[in-house]
């Protein structure tokens, strides 16, 4: 695919008269005139539709990755694939849906019919990650294509060499997953059994079929509601107001960008180890150019792609860019095509953020944290009130095996263990245990008792980790420590992530946070420390798994931190007495009396 692309092409009509006489009592109410009140109604209804689809997915799926952690996105698009609204439980998946929808519209052209359903995961046709499989359903009103509904979710398995999809030894896409370019699995309401069987013959777990059905169900829910809306107001009204909504949103985004001084700002983020070459290190370099109402992210100086699976795809990297920017602007901007129009993103093919066919790319979503680091470092000097210190970079582990009690296979992404703290801002501490920036608190821990039912493991500890946050006048969010005893005999562990070489960075005199770590204590007394992108097989039952997801970076001089707050934190054991004195300059007499909560 191209290496340079504007996520939202400027193919939209100029703004229509957005206010004036076309309102109730105003006299002229032509079919396509903009009613500012109806505009609010459309915006609110689009969001209600994607929220309803999201609830449907959560309630009906089986993989805990979907229904417990909410690692999925629902969306609504117009007939050309332009984003109308999304519910972004996991934003890193979100900004590849509109590009893929446009791709389907172009590829299938007039071969799209009422009752069709498409699947897609292919990273070389704008997918973001192989495991994130999308369902697209065209929506028709009286045989006219009027829009699309879509759900993309992280599947528990999608074929490839390793269960669960993370294969640190992969060098090509085929070792990672089954490629599904846009494929019609239902045609005019009839399931294409042959296609269906071909796909699921290549997937290890049965629940994936059911979860894809659940995603199809949610698309049908969205379709029904969009048709109802169009029946009520008519297609001309829908089209005109949709465009007005894009325009209004674009103006909001432009106004936010205009708050950033014009200029060119550069920053870096680092990736340690590519899964193949010990000691390897890669740098993501971004040059952010702000010019009045447009913002351009240029990654041309970023390091070359790796020969392993630590590579991004264009849409996973662009999603990372957008979601990082969204944290720096008004959080109430609606999420539609207008929001992304003023953003240009340049990622040359062949870089670590946009690997060339047929490179392996499963790690691509997890290049978001270092990518966000680069953007935050670039913009912090000019947007001090909006840019946080560094967030804890993701380090995760996926365990698979067989539950000896039930004889059933399980796949578990340890969401509870991977969620560290966010970075601080002036006036606001980081958020404790929020997790990677690509989810921003939208992905949840497994419930402990459900974890012990769905896996054979025994949870020993899952608590906030004292002193894990970067010190500062505003401290970073705290990280967590997770310990469990492995209960299956055939356990395989796949690690993926970073943050074990470099802690989240502080800003304005705030301190860096601690490091991530994963460590296995085997029953025979040996200790195994997996690398940050590793595959460990044959982990014996009784092994104690210990993980630290550390905190976020601090902001401002720690000695300026409010003393009463600090005393409370010492009393509550989230900051140790030693750290209070060493990092925050607390005098011994200021310390609260004998904290009887151990840290």
């Amino acid at each position, binding site marked *: 695919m191209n290496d340079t692309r504007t996520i939202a092409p400027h193919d939209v009509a100029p703004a229509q008269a*957005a206010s004036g006489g076309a*309102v*109730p*009592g*105003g006299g002229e*109410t032509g079919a396509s005139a903009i009613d*500012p*009140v109806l505009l*609010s109604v459309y915006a*609110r209804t689009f969001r*209600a539709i994607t929220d*309803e689809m999201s609830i*449907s997915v959560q309630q009906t799926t*089986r993989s*805990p990755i979907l*229904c*417990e952690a909410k690692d999925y996105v629902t969306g609504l698009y117009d007939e050309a694939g332009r984003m109308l609204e999304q519910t*972004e439980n996991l*934003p890193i998946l979100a900004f590849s849906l509109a590009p893929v929808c446009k791709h389907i519209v172009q590829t299938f052209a007039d071969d799209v019919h009422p009752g069709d359903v498409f699947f897609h995961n292919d990273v070389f046709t704008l997918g973001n990650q192989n495991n994130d499989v999308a369902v697209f359903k065209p929506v028709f009103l009286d045989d006219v294509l009027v829009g699309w509904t879509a759900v993309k979710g992280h599947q528990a398995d999608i074929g490839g060499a390793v269960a669960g999809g993370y294969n640190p030894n992969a060098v090509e896409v085929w070792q990672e997953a089954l490629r599904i370019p846009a494929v019609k699995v239902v045609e005019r309401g009839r399931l294409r059994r042959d296609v269906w069987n071909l796909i699921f013959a290549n997937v290890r777990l049965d629940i994936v079929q*059911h979860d894809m*059905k*659940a995603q199809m*169900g949610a698309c049908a*829910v969205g379709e029904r509601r969009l048709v109802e809306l169009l029946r009520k107001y008519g297609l001309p009204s829908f089209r005109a107001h949709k465009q007005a909504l894009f325009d*209004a949103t674009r*103006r909001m985004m432009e*106004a936010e960008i205009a708050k950033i001084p014009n200029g060119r700002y550069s920053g870096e983020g680092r990736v340690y180890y590519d899964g193949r070459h010990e000691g390897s290190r890669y740098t993501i370099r971004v040059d952010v150019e702000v010019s009045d109402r447009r913002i351009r992210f240029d990654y041309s100086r970023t390091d070359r792609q790796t020969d392993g699976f630590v590579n991004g795809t264009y849409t996973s990297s662009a999603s990372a860019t957008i979601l990082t920017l*969204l944290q720096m602007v*008004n*959080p109430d901007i609606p999420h539609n095509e207008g929001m992304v129009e003023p953003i240009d993103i340049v990622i040359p093919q062949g870089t670590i953020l946009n690997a060339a066919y047929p490179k392996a790319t499963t790690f691509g979503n997890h290049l978001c944290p270092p990518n966000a680091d680069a953007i935050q470092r670039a913009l912090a000097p000019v947007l001090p009130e*909006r840019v946080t210190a560094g967030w804890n970079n993701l380090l995760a582990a996926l365990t698979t095996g067989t539950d000896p009690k039930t004889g059933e296979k399980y796949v578990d992404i340890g969401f*509870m263990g991977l*969620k560290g703290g*966010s970075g601080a801002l002036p006036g*606001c501490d980081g*958020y404790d*245990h929020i*997790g990677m920036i690509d989810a*921003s*608190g*939208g*992905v*949840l*821990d497994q*419930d*402990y*008792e459900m974890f*012990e*039912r769905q896996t054979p493991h025994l949870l*020993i*500890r*899952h*608590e*906030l980790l004292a002193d894990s946050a970067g010190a500062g006048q505003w401290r970073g969010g705290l990280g*967590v420590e997770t*310990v469990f005893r492995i209960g299956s005999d055939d356990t395989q562990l796949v690690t993926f992530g970073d943050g074990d070489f470099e802690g989240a960075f502080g800003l304005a005199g705030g301190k860096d946070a601690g490091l991530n770590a994963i460590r296995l204590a085997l029953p025979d007394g040996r200790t195994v420390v997996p690398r940050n992108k590793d595959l460990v097989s044959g982990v014996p039952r009784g092994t104690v798994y210990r993980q630290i997801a550390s905190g976020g970076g601090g902001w401002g001089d720690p000695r300026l931190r409010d003393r009463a707050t600090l005393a409370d934190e010492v009393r*509550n054991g989230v900051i140790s007495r030693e750290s209070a004195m060493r990092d925050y300059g607390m005098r011994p007499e200021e310390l609260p009396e004998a*904290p*009887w*909560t151990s840290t």
Partner: protein
Amino acid sequence: MTLKIGIDVGGTFTDFVVARDDEPPFIHKILSTPADPSIAVVEGLAQIAALQCPPMDPARFAASIDTIVHGTTVTTNATLTGTGAACGLLTTEGVRDALEMRRGIRERQYDNRYTNVRPLVPRSRRIGVPGRIDRDGHELAPLDVAAIERTLAQWRTEGVEAVAICFMNAYADPAHERLAAECVRRAMPDAYLAVSTEVLPSIRFYDRLSTTALDAYVGPKLERYLDALTARLASAGFGGLLLVMQSNGGVISPQLARARAALTLLSGPAGGPSAGLFYVREHGRDGCITTDMGGTSFEASVAIGAPLVKTDGEIARHRIALPMLDIHTIGAGGGSIGWLDAGGLLRMGPASAGADPGPACYGRGATLPTTTDANVVLGYLDPQYFAGGRMTLDAEAARRAIDANIARPMGLTVEQAAAGMYRVACNNMAQGVREVTIKRGVDPREFPLIPGGGAGPIHGCLICTELGIPLQVVPREASVLCAFGMLMCELRHDFVRTFVGRLDALRWDVLAALVHDMRAEGDALLEAERIPPASRRVALRLDCRYVKQYHEVSVAVAPEWIERADAGAVVQAFHDEHQRLYGYALRAEGAPVELVNVRLQAIGATRAPGHARAAAGDRDARATVKSVRAVYVPERDAYAPVPVHDGHRMRCGHVVSGPALIEQQTTAIFVSEAFDCTVDALGSFVLYAKGREDLLGRREHSAHERDARVPAEGLPA
């Protein structure tokens, strides 16, 4: 003749509904006394005594009351304002932060200034105790009782008022929790005690933990309040039955409420749906959508046979997993403020002008435009006849507020801007109704809408138009709907047990024994509440899912199915419900189904008040027109003169064709052009889509026959 009084304590007003057999209910409203809400309760009763014909001595009147049903927001307010008890938590070693971390959610994903909520129990008083039960209920490590005793000794010195206990896998074996509870009872006999397996003995640690902590957090406050209330009522001469409203739509004795305070956490609006059902049964309907529009919020709920229940509630971002009525609240009330967002889109709420200073038209110096201000400009509210003329509204202030903040920035006239505010507010409320209907697999068009609250019936027609609902029933008591509904509520006790197993390999005998035990527990409570066996029944539900699904679907089942181990019937019911909720079922695939939780509700019937019923008279309502006023008619996008009827003079059988206004002291009804309105035998105003008289007069049973029927959700005990 029995005398029942429903008393609903709200933030601003305390509402009273006095019901005697076969007499129209009497309504009274006085200002609340937030410092001690029981003062207003007793004061209101004294006022009502004085208003009797002939006036009665307060003590004699109080003595003549058979039943008082009381709704309180003491626990709700304590949670919302963070003023609950000083609590301690005993939990399993290693997981003491689960309460604070809330599974790591940040509700506003892109807002880096959005902070976590303060935990109900501070970390220094969340104690992880050694001792462990595994997923099968086996003890892996004994409970460290000595550690608990050391902790309790410390808490005694710190003035801890309430203790919550929640251990890992206690649903599988509560032995450790029982042991810890004994320690607390011994060491801190005066502390309020919340034990997770007594509050909510089901799987999902965080849900159980948060619910238990909430129970402890609000327990002492409710204890003190109910003690004060019962003492005050007793000294005022009341010797009848006092019942307290619960979030599940049932009532409970104050003794039980005291011990399980979390049951009342969202009980404020829980009377509404029962009231709604009462009014629509007059029309042969067994389901309705009840809404209640207050000053800052709008509540919507659905009843089908009985009010719908959910177990995934939340209060102030804290999880509460007890069964409660599925009532959706949004920030859309009379005081909701209109504003333009950064993209120039018109928004209404959720910020509210509250009661003070209130909307601009209250003339208390407020300058921000609210829904009520728009209603004044549009002519729906008569500035001279607000609250029956007890308050005058400043229409000019309303116009100024709308002009400055909405009309001029949008380039509209004040009237156009007000119309826009009205339409956006109605759309917000319609979305609120969607939350409890479409999102739960219910088609709103099949149910009449009850627009409650004083201003609700001004917005009902547009909400109905938005959703395609052809029928509305506006009760005379619309402004005190919840207080009235409380009088309809039965005693309800919920029980839940986790019992996991595939239906095709279930130990049905064990399940039957479990159900038997739960039923016995319910009987014991109802016995204590003096409910005779003939008035008792149970409703049984099984939470099931396809094997490996994470979320369960709750399916109503007959107890006989369990006794005869009828897996087929349960599976069938599960497929049906899954299909209804999510649009598909895996029936053909024969996907195995598993049971997770057993839920039993023990219900004790109470006597609902009778209601006078009038015979239909003349259709001609012209004599009730008191004036003609220009109001905004949405169907025409224009103002038009419409007749204003005196609602108090309208009688059964009268018919009014929209557009029209019907005014009563505490309620204004706008009948839009798409609707006509008639008055039914109970005196309710029934609005039906023009030409749809067929929707009326489908009453199949008299109220008494109706009461004798077994409600759809319950089966005879």
